[in-house]
């Protein structure tokens, strides 16, 4: 009798625990979403009146209603392209070498540990490094190129780690199959491993580049300017980016500049949203192709 009754009691207790966990989980999600919504709504209410074609096509100005983000938006775009051009080949290449070619010895383990550590280094440290190495020693000056090199350093650890994770998810049976058919190791990597790992690698790349787009501190350190009224016309041009422009506007005393900052944030959010959407699209496309 006692045993039969005790079992539903035990079950009921477990059930209550599960319900409690679900409740706590839902509360946490609700809290996060509410905070985000409040922030987004506030930003939107502050900034939407300033959003106009002129806001996108004007250079910065001392008059808040004439000021725009043209230089910052184009600067961010160029910086992103250049960073991607530097960081993707090096990062994916390093990951492929470490996962597919390198022998596992103390040296590769040392490299691995360092890469993981580098992913956690505060971004301003990369800025200081970039200032000394790229701006001063390599005399790149306060240029777009110096900014992109610094940002590439910042993005590399994340790209390498993500790409390695992606490569590791490829089952060894595929590699063995390819090698057994007489393919070289390079052909195996190029035609079998890389296509399978591509969605994961792409996701890693786009997430790390999204971080690059939102970065302010290291670019301020290496000398991204606040006021500029020409678009970069080469790799050596001075530049500014959206977060730097937004940061400057938020520190101004005039209310109207705060509205400009809010409008700038909306544009930056759109840009990030577009990038993440692209990541999802690319991932789905390649996953589908693989399934066929």
């Amino acid at each position: 009798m006692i045993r039969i009754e005790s079992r539903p009691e035990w079950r009921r207790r477990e059930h209550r625990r599960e319900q409690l966990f679900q409740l706590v989980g839902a509360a946490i999600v609700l809290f996060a979403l509410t905070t985000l919504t409040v922030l987004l709504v506030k930003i939107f209410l502050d900034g939407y009146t300033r959003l106009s074609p002129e806001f996108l096509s004007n250079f910065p100005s001392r008059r808040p209603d004439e000021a725009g983000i043209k230089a910052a938006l184009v600067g961010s775009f160029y910086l992103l392209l250049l960073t991607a051009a530097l960081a993707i080949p090096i990062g994916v290449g390093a990951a492929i070498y470490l996962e597919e070619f390198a022998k596992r010895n103390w040296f590769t383990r040392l490299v691995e540990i360092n890469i993981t550590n580098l992913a956690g280094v505060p971004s301003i440290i990369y800025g200081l490094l970039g200032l000394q190495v790229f701006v001063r020693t390599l005399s790149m000056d306060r240029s777009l190129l110096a900014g992109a090199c610094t940002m590439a350093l910042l993005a590399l650890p994340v790209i390498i780690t993500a790409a390695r994770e992606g490569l590791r998810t490829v089952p060894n049976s595929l590699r063995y199959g390819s090698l057994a058919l007489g393919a070289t190791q390079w052909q195996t990597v190029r035609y079998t491993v890389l296509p399978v790992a591509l969605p994961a690698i792409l996701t890693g790349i786009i997430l790390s580049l999204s971080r690059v787009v939102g970065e302010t501190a290291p670019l301020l350190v290496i000398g991204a300017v606040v006021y500029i009224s020409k678009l970069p016309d080469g790799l050596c041009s001075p530049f500014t980016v959206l977060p730097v422009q937004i940061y400057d506007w938020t520190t101004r005393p005039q209310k109207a500049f705060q509205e400009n900052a809010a409008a700038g944030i909306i544009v930056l959010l759109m840009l990030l949203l577009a990038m993440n959407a692209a990541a999802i699209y690319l991932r789905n496309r390649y996953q589908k192709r693989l399934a066929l």
Partner: protein
Amino acid sequence: MKPRVALWTPLSAFVLILAACGKQGTGARSGSASAAVTNELVGTIRIDGSSTVLPISEAVAEEFQKQHPKVQVTVGKSGTSGGFKKFAQGEVEIVGASRPIRETEDEACRKNGVEYIEIPVAYDAIAVVVNPQNTWCDYLTVAELRKVWEPAAEGKIVSWDQVRPGFPKERLTLFGAGTESGTFDYFTAAVVGKEKESRGDYNPSEDDNILVQGVSRTKGALGYFGLAYYENNKDKLKLIGIDNGNGPVKPSRETVIDGTYQPLSRPLFIYVSVKALERPEVAAFVKFYIQNAGKLSEEVGYIALPEKVYTLAMERFEKRIKGSAFGAHGSQVGVKLEDLYRIEEAVQ
């Protein structure tokens, strides 16, 4: 073979780009030589330094570029100290400063062969503010300010009744400029007597809007920042007067110009590299800066210097008088710019 070609093409391109960036300076100069025929100025002028001076430089650059669209002016924001570091390295032609240059910075310039001309561009006042709910405090003497902010006050002066007998037992919460800013340097020099000597247990921020928020939300708050931030947030703050021995004075256009708001009015400067002035576009820009600094500084929320000082500054610039009228000793308090520059000229 193929992958190797693919690898070397971007690498060699990269090296070429590096070489191109190094020659940037000469490229700009040859550009200005060819344009001399048409009398049109070209080139890049790089400004960096104080975030306080930035809005003035931005306004001047904006107006200057309307007349000379082929000159590129960029303004950065590294703070006064950070700006002088870049200036001494020859990385910028002009640096904005919210205090005069220091001995160490002057030495760094000299070591790298960077000579400079000091040009005052506007006045700024540092406002001392409290929360609007603060009914007890309408002014503080300089001695009381020192008592609150000196290093010895750290952890000891924590309540308003310790500042002056008769004030209520309300917790004193302090807000002030971050240690990298020229505002911090000037305030500590003016109130405590020595640059950078301050108690450490206050809420510092490089962003004055954060300080505004802090003071407006804390009943027992006391804070200091540029007057423009008070003027744009009058409904959230209460401005208090400063008594320097002649009764309390509140900061305003009048009290700053007639010299009664002391010791918290300060001049703002730009420092110009003498070598860069050999380039016609830099010389034209600095001349334009001095001519328009008064009008444009008022427009962005500062106080124009008396016309006489701009005339003296223009003379200094045209005669290329090098060095600092302040003897490179950093912040100095209560100096009338007119007297200073006139004495200097008499000596020369």
